[in-house]
C-alpha cells in the first residue's frame, strides 16, 4: 500500500521541482531599487530591425551614461510579436518597457498585462502630452495603457527622372489620375518601365493591404464600421468589386509585372532593384523602408503624398507606442525612461517621426522625405477597425488572399467581393 503511494508521490515531487526550476523570474526581480541606492536594471524590448535602430541604441547609451542609477538594456525581438510578450507577461515575466505597434495596444490592455498610465501621467506629466497623435489607439476602457511614440504612414516613392521621361511633372493627386499616369509611363516606354510596382502577394503581411485601404478610405468605403449599435460590413459588394477591379487593372494592362504577385514586403529586393535600374517608376513605402532602400541604391528617389493622401482620413497613421509591463517592479523608473524616449533628445539620434503634432511640424527632414511629412497630419490610425470581433490581421489576410485570387485568375472580382463580405459577416456574427 505504501509502495503504491510512494511512486506517484516521488513522481509528483520530481515534476514540481522541475516546474519550479523552469519558472521565470518576474520582470526586474533582480533589478535592485533606486530608493535603496542600488542600481535599477530595466529591460526595454523593441521590435524594429536591428539595422534601423542604431540611433535608438545611441539614445539608450546616452541615457545609461547620464543615469547610472537606472541602467537600461535594449533588447530587440524582431519582427513584432506581441503574443510573445503576452505569454511572458501572463506568466509573470517579460521586459519592463515594451515597444508596441499602435494597433496592438488594445490586445495587451485587455488582459491587463500593462500598467495603467493615468496616475503616472498626472503625477509626473509628459511634456506635450496634449499634442500626441493617435491617443485613441492607446486608450482602452477609458484608461491609458501606452503612449504613442513614433508615427509613420505610406508615401508614394518614385523616380523623378523616370516620371519626367514620360512627360509627368507632378505626382498624381487622385487614384484615378494615378492609374492614368502609371499607364502613361508604361505605354510610353513600350512596356520597359512598370508604372506602378507593389507587393501584391496573398500572404497576410503583404503590403497591398495599405494601398487597398487608402483607396477605399479615399472613396468613403470601410471594410467594417461601428455605427454605435454594432459592427457591420462597411462596403457593398459592388463597391468592393470595383476596388478589386481597380487594382487588378494594373496587372491586366501590364503596368505592374505579374511577378509582384509573389511579393510581400514593400521594400522587397525585386522592387528596390527595379527602382534602381529605372524599370519601376512608382511604389509606396513607410519611412524606415524608404531610408533603407534609398541608402542601398544609386538612383535618386523622391517621396510624395499617396493619391488622395492630402485628404483627411485617406491614409493610415501607423507607428509605435510605449508601455510598461504590469510585472515590472520599477514602474516609476520605467516611466522616467519612457519620458526620456519621448523627448526631443532621443529623436536627435533616432531617425523616426515623433507621434506628436507639434514636433512633426518642427521637424527638419531630408527633402526626399517630404511626402511623409506632408501626408502625416492627414493620416488616421486604424481605430476604425479596432475592437471589432474580427482582428485587423484577419481582415488583412482575407483581403490580400481574395485580391490575389483575382489577380491570379482563380476567381472574378464579384465572387471575391462576395467571399470577403460573407467571411466578414460570419466573423462579426461570431
Amino acid at each position, binding site marked *: 500500500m505504501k509502495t503504491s503511494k510512494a511512486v506517484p508521490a516521488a513522481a509528483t515531487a520530481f515534476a514540481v521541482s522541475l516546474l519550479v526550476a523552469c519558472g521565470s523570474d518576474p520582470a526586474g526581480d533582480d533589478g535592485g531599487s533606486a530608493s535603496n541606492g542600488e542600481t535599477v536594471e530595466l529591460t526595454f524590448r523593441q521590435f524594429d530591425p536591428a539595422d534601423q535602430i542604431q540611433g535608438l541604441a545611441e539614445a539608450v547609451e546616452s541615457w545609461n551614461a547620464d543615469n547610472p542609477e537606472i541602467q537600461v538594456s535594449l533588447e530587440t525581438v524582431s519582427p513584432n510579436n506581441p*503574443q510573445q510578450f503576452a*505569454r511572458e507577461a*501572463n506568466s509573470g515575466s517579460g521586459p519592463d518597457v515594451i515597444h508596441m505597434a499602435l494597433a496592438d495596444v488594445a490586445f495587451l490592455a485587455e488582459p491587463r498585462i500593462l500598467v495603467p498610465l493615468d496616475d503616472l501621467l498626472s503625477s509626473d506629466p509628459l511634456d506635450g502630452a496634449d499634442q500626441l497623435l493617435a491617443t485613441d489607439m492607446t486608450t482602452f476602457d477609458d484608461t491609458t495603457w501606452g503612449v504613442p511614440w513614433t508615427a509613420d504612414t505610406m508615401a508614394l516613392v518614385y523616380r523623378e527622372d523616370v516620371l519626367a521621361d514620360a512627360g509627368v511633372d507632378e505626382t498624381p493627386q487622385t487614384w484615378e489620375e494615378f492609374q492614368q499616369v502609371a499607364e502613361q509611363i508604361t505605354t510610353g516606354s513600350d512596356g520597359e518601365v512598370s508604372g506602378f510596382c507593389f507587393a501584391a502577394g*496573398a500572404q497576410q503581411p503583404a503590403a497591398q493591404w495599405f494601398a487597398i485601404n487608402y483607396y477605399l478610405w479615399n472613396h468613403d468605403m470601410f471594410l467594417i464600421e461601428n455605427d454605435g449599435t454594432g459592427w457591420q460590413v462597411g462596403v457593398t459588394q459592388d463597391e468592393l468589386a470595383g476596388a478589386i477591379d481597380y487594382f487588378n487593372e494594373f496587372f491586366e494592362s501590364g503596368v505592374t509585372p505579374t511577378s509582384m504577385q509573389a511579393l510581400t514586403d514593400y521594400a522587397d529586393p*525585386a522592387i528596390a532593384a527595379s527602382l534602381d535600374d529605372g524599370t519601376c517608376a512608382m511604389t509606396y513605402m513607410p519611412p524606415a523602408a524608404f531610408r533603407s532602400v534609398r541608402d542601398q541604391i544609386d538612383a535618386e528617389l523622391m517621396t510624395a503624398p499617396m493619391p488622395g493622401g492630402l485628404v483627411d482620413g485617406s491614409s493610415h497613421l501607423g507607428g509605435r507606442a510605449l508601455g510598461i509591463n504590469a510585472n515590472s517592479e520599477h514602474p516609476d523608473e520605467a516611466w522616467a525612461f519612457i519620458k526620456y524616449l519621448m523627448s526631443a533628445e532621443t529623436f536627435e539620434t533616432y531617425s523616426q517621426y515623433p507621434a506628436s503634432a507639434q514636433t512633426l511640424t518642427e521637424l527638419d527632414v531630408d527633402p526626399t522625405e517630404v511626402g511623409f511629412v506632408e501626408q502625416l497630419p492627414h493620416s488616421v490610425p486604424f481605430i476604425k477597425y479596432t475592437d471589432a470581433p474580427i482582428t485587423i490581421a484577419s481582415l488583412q489576410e482575407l483581403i490580400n*488572399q481574395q485580391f490575389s*485570387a483575382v489577380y491570379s485568375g*482563380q476567381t472574378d472580382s464579384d465572387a471575391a467581393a462576395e467571399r470577403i463580405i460573407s467571411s466578414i459577416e460570419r466573423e462579426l456574427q461570431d
Partner: protein
Amino acid sequence: MSATTGRRGERLQPYLLTTPALVIVALLFLFPSIYNVVLAFQSLSPFQAPGDADWVGWRNFSRVIADPQFGGAAFNTVFWLTLVTVVLRLIFGIALALALHSPILRRWKVRGLARTMALLPWMVPPVVAVAAWRWILDGNSGVLNQTLESLGLIDSGIPFLAQTSTVWWSVIAIIVWRELPFAVMVLLAGLQSIPDEQYEAASLDGAARWRQFLSVTLPNLRPVLTVVVLVTVIATFNNFVYVWLTTGGGPGAYTAVLATELYSTAFFANNLGGAAAIGLIMTAIMAVFAVLYMRATFKEDAQ
C-alpha cells in the same frame, strides 16, 4: 525483516528507475497533448492567460469545418503536400540510392564524395533553402528565368510562385530537393543489407536487371520502405515551413494547407481554441492513416 525490505526494494527498483523518464515523457508529451485537447473546446486568445479561457463546447470544430477554405486546405495537404511529394521522394530516393550503391562509384573512388553531395540539401536549414529557391524562381530576376531567357526558351520571366499553373510544382520541387536525402540514406542502408548471394542466385536463374530489381531489391527494401513512408507522410502532412515561407498559402488560398490555416487561426484571428481544433483534426487524420497503414503492412508481411 531485512530480507523483506530487500525484496520490497527489489520490487520497487524498476519503478524508481523508470519514474524520471516517465515524468519527463508526461511533462513533454502527455501534458501538451492533453492540453491541446482541452484547448480545442475553449475560447482563448494568445494575449490571455490560460486561466482566462472559456468553455465553448464543439463550437471551435463546427467553425473550422464550416470555413469554406478548410476543405481546400485539407485537399492540398493530403494530395499536393503529402501524396505527391512522398511519391516523388520514393521514386527519386530509390533511383538515387541505387546510383549511390553502384559498384562503379566505388571503382572510381568517388562513393564517399557522391554520398556527401547527396546529403548536402539536408544540411541546409529549410529557411535558407526556401530563400535560395525563392531567389532562383523569382519572376523577374530569378536565375531560372534568366537561364531560360538566355537559351531563348521563353520571351519573358515566368512568375513561378504567383501563377496557379506553376506554384504547387515549385513548392514540390523545394520540398523534394530539401527532403530527398533522408529517403536516400535510409534506402541506401536497406540496399546495403541485401546479401549479394540473392543477386547471384537471381542472375544464375537468368533474371535480368529489371527482374532482379522487382524480385530481389524491392522485396528486401519493404521493411525500410514501410518506415520511410510512415515517417515522411507524418512529417510532411504536418509541415508548415515550406508552404508558409514560399507562398504563404497564395496566390489567393491556392496553396493553403492545414498547418498554415492553423497558424492563421492562432495568430491572425487570435483564436487558439480554433487552432487547437485544427491540430486535433490533423492528429486524428494521421492517427487513422498510421493505424490503417501499419495494419495493411503487417497483414501483407504475415501473408
